[in-house]
């Protein structure tokens, strides 16, 4: 399997993606932002379609659209109920735009499939390096504000009481999510991105009660899903996203069973 260069690239990319999404995912789950992550992935689809239309690399379009929109969402009022509906409206608009861009660029069917559901085969060595660089940036930023981000994400009332810069932290975090979404969609595709950004972290929180341990466990769960998924996809020729989704759902299911057994 590793004689094939595209499989080597795919495994390298999958590893990077698993680490970034497991790490960011813990904060996504703590901040109750799973819904927003889903929206950002739709916006990412639109960005990728725009990039295809402009004949840019897909990653560039995704980064542009997701970071821009996450800054805008960060400026929205903190009124929770309105926020959800505004986010829905934004995501509907971007899905529509994505379909328009694809149709204008005359590449509809195959590009759409690979953007929406991911494709392992397509990843080249320079693209792997792009992912490495983006991931290092995400990791460095998160490390720099780790304690504040932890406080703000796991106890926003306490963080406000202690005068933390919550608006700034919210925007920084949204940008980190935007980059993580763009990175992760290279493998699982934009439709299934929230799988890697939410399920491993949501499972991890049932097994352990510290932030660092949750991050380690979430990264581990993502790695199991992506590595095993790639291997099974290689053996069976079925889509890798299918396997990753199934494995992560199984991990989440067993976490729920574990919690139920501990509490009863």
């Amino acid at each position, binding site marked *: 399997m590793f004689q094939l260069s595209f499989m080597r690239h795919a495994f390298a990319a999958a590893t990077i993606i698993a680490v970034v999404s497991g790490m960011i995912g813990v904060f996504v789950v703590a901040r109750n932002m799973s819904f927003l992550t889903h929206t950002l992935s739709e916006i990412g689809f639109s960005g990728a379609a725009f990039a295809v239309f402009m004949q840019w690399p897909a990653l560039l379009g995704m980064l542009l659209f997701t970071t821009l929109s996450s800054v805008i969402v960060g400026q929205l009022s903190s009124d929770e109920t309105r926020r959800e509906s505004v986010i829905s409206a934004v995501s509907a608009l971007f899905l529509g735009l994505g379909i328009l861009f694809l149709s204008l660029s005359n590449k509809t069917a195959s590009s759409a499939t690979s953007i929406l559901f991911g494709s392992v085969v397509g990843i080249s060595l320079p693209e792997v390096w792009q992912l490495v660089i983006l991931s290092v940036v995400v990791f460095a930023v998160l490390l720099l504000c780790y304690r504040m981000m932890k*406080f703000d994400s*796991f*106890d926003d*009332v306490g963080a406000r009481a202690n005068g933390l810069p919550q608006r700034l932290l919210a925007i920084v975090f949204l940008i980190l999510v935007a980059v993580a979404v763009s990175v992760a969609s290279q493998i699982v595709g934009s439709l299934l991105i929230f799988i890697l950004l939410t399920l491993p972290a949501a499972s991890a929180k*049932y097994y352990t009660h510290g932030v660092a341990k*949750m991050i380690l466990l979430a990264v581990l769960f993502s790695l199991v899903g992506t590595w095993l998924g790639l291997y099974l996809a290689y053996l069976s020729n079925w889509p890798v996203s299918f396997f990753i989704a199934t494995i992560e759902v199984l991990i989440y299911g067993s976490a729920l069973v574990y919690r139920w057994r501990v509490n009863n």
Partner: protein
Amino acid sequence: MVVHDLSFAVNQGDFLVVIGENGVGKTTLIRSLLGFLTPQEGTINKQAGLRIGYVPQFRNLDAEYPLSIRDFVALNFPNTIRPWLSRDERHRLQQILEQTKLAETAERPLGLASGGEKQRAYLAQALLAAPQLLIMDESTASLDNEMKFELLDLVSRFQQQGLSVLFITHDWELAKHYGTRYLHLMPQEYEQGPINELPASSEEGDE
């Protein structure tokens, strides 16, 4: 609500009880003290560099809240880049957990803790930063009688070691039991003084 011409002081080691019905401006008062609101006129003189610890009234933590009591309390070390706790920080954390009687249950998830343990964890988190003034907003409101006294016994132990406390409540019994001074906020007016001058109940206070 609006607070007019309010003038009061909290000195070191005071246990100032701020008492009054809902809507007389207790929350506005705290927000001004914490610097979230600026008074339209007048000044708030805080000792330069005064460290204020604030225990808010509401926390939205459900039964699924994942952090252990220890990790929740430790959140209030935000101003360092080092991701892990230093030896000094770990020591300080352990000391606070013991002083707030949380050391034995510290590894349990906070979401599954009792109401009293939760309030003690909120208190411990605020005390971790070694404040000189502690502001507690209705911290006993959700507790049963025994737990109210247990929590405030802990607080008054810190007060005896020099911590100033500003305790917002509408529980007159607790006010008289723990306060050293009171500030009674009423619509359009206020009274203050040593705790033994606090009227017996809100009805008398309104006359």
